[in-house]
């Protein structure tokens, strides 16, 4: 689904004014997502086609098309070990960005197909560079660092609109003139708006939203600093509707996730999962699915996806789960339980037709078969099957999903969110 809604300055103001007192209500379901066989997984950006950029002890990985794929081999002579490579960002075209090298002297890369383009920002000043995220127009957010801190930038290698070609340095400054000693720009949407965090001494950690069209929006400056409830705030992802996710200490305890919309902010925890050392939300895609990671009591990172506004069945009749929910055209609805052994999905009397289905990532081998009116479709987890573009221009009243391995161990009768 394509959201084209802009995120004007007036909306930003309203959003930020609403940020402290407002708390939206929605049920979120957390689903673990780890690189198979890895001792630790860091899940970063999730794009709107269901691909995920990740790092792990096994090296960088991208989930795409139903499987976790290792990053292509590094160029001969790069000097980097495959275990020193992490994918941090991925846009809807699959162009991936990340870092390679030892922690103190990383280089950033843009990976298109199997071709790496390495870059470092101001190597005369900084010992390492991270590429954090990439927009659909090819704008890359990143940070260059040394022992004294880090400087954020936007890198525009292909002269995409809204930013000067090359590098634009981001310098968050408090009203008293204190300049951030470390700036981490991160998620960037199709309008070039991006979010990140800025650390001040004194002042602590602030979140920021940068809007390249700030003049047209009537704002006084491109960058707006904010904190949720006056606490440590680190936004990391922004979608094309302007929804922002990240992590914060606004809950008064440890680090938890947050979702910030025009309706206010909501703290997100995953009660069924061990996030004793923090829950870090890194991106949100246009369906509203959030990616991120948690750090458990032992300090180990694990990836996860978080699904919004999950609709649970209201009852079960003769083995069929029955739903009752308001829906609107093209707005995703997330149904629980997960398809355990194969399901037939059917609308009720008078309901609008199904127009698409997207099946979950991280269940069995992530490869499904969708059967509809005598036609079969092979579908990977995270990929959208648009019925209206697949021979059913008006949509479908029913379809079946198969291909869920029994070994996946999903309980068809347990719709309990984790």
């Amino acid at each position: 689904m394509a959201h084209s809604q802009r995120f004007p300055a007036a909306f930003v103001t309203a959003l930020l004014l609403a940020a402290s007192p407002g708390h939206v209500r929605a049920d979120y379901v957390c689903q673990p997502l780890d690189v198979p066989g890895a001792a630790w997984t860091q899940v970063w950006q999730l794009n709107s086609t269901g691909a995920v950029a990740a790092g792990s002890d096994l090296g960088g990985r991208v989930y795409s098309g139903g499987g976790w794929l290792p990053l292509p081999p590094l160029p001969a002579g790069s000097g980097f070990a495959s275990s020193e490579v992490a994918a941090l960002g991925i846009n809807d075209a699959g162009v991936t960005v990340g870092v390679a090298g030892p922690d103190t002297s990383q280089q950033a890369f843009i990976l298109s197909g199997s071709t790496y383009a390495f870059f470092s920002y101001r190597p005369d000043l900084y010992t390492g560079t991270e590429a954090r995220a990439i927009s659909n127009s090819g704008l890359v957010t990143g940070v260059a660092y040394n022992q004294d801190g880090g400087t954020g930038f936007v890198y525009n290698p292909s002269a995409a609109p809204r930013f000067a070609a090359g590098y634009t340095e981001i310098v968050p400054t408090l009203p008293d003139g204190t300049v951030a000693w470390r700036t981490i720009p991160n998620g960037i949407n199709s309008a070039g708006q991006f979010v990140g965090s800025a650390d001040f001494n004194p002042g602590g950690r602030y979140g920021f939203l940068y809007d390249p069209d700030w003049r047209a929006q009537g704002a006084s400056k491109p960058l707006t600093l904010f904190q949720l409830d006056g606490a440590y705030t680190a936004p990391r992802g922004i979608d094309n509707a302007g929804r922002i996710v990240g992590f914060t200490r606004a809950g008064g305890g440890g680090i938890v996730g947050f979702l910030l919309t025009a309706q206010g902010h909501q703290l997100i925890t995953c009660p069924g999962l061990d996030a004793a050392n923090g829950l870090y939300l890194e991106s949100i895609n246009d369906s509203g699915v959030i990616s991120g990671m948690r750090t458990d009591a032992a300090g180990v990172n694990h990836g996860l996806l978080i699904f919004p506004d999950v609709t649970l069945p209201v009852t079960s009749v003769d083995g069929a789960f029955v739903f009752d929910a308001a829906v609107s055209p093209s707005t995703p609805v997330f149904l629980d339980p997960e398809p355990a052994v194969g399901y037939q999905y059917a609308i009720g009397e008078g309901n609008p037709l199904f127009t698409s289905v997207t099946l979950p990532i991280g269940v069995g081998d992530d490869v499904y078969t969708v059967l509809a009116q005598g036609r079969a479709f092979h579908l990977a987890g995270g990929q959208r099957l648009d019925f209206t573009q697949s021979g059913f221009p008006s949509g479908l009243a029913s379809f079946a999903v198969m291909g869920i391995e029994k070994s996946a161990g999903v309980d068809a009768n347990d719709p309990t969110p984790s």
Partner: protein
Amino acid sequence: MTEVTFGAGGNGRFTGTMTALTPASELADLAAAATAVGPGQSLVTKLRRAQTALAAGDVTGTCAALGTFVAEVSAQAGKHVGAMLADALVAEAHEIEGAVGCP
């Protein structure tokens, strides 16, 4: 989670159902998908044979029929059956084999 979207029109609600499939219903769906696929009625005939065997509680016969279905689809892949469709049909047949308890 399964993510679905809906079109315009209707009553603006989803009051539908998710019904767990049984091997019999999966076979019926697979047979529907295989109808008019490949040369003649050979593929769907094999699935009808599997359905009949399954209805009779004949696991061996069900598995044998599914095995011949998989073999023929695989042989026709890229020829009379599109490669992607063949993959989908074979994958589903294997799932049914697993559900039935084929060795």
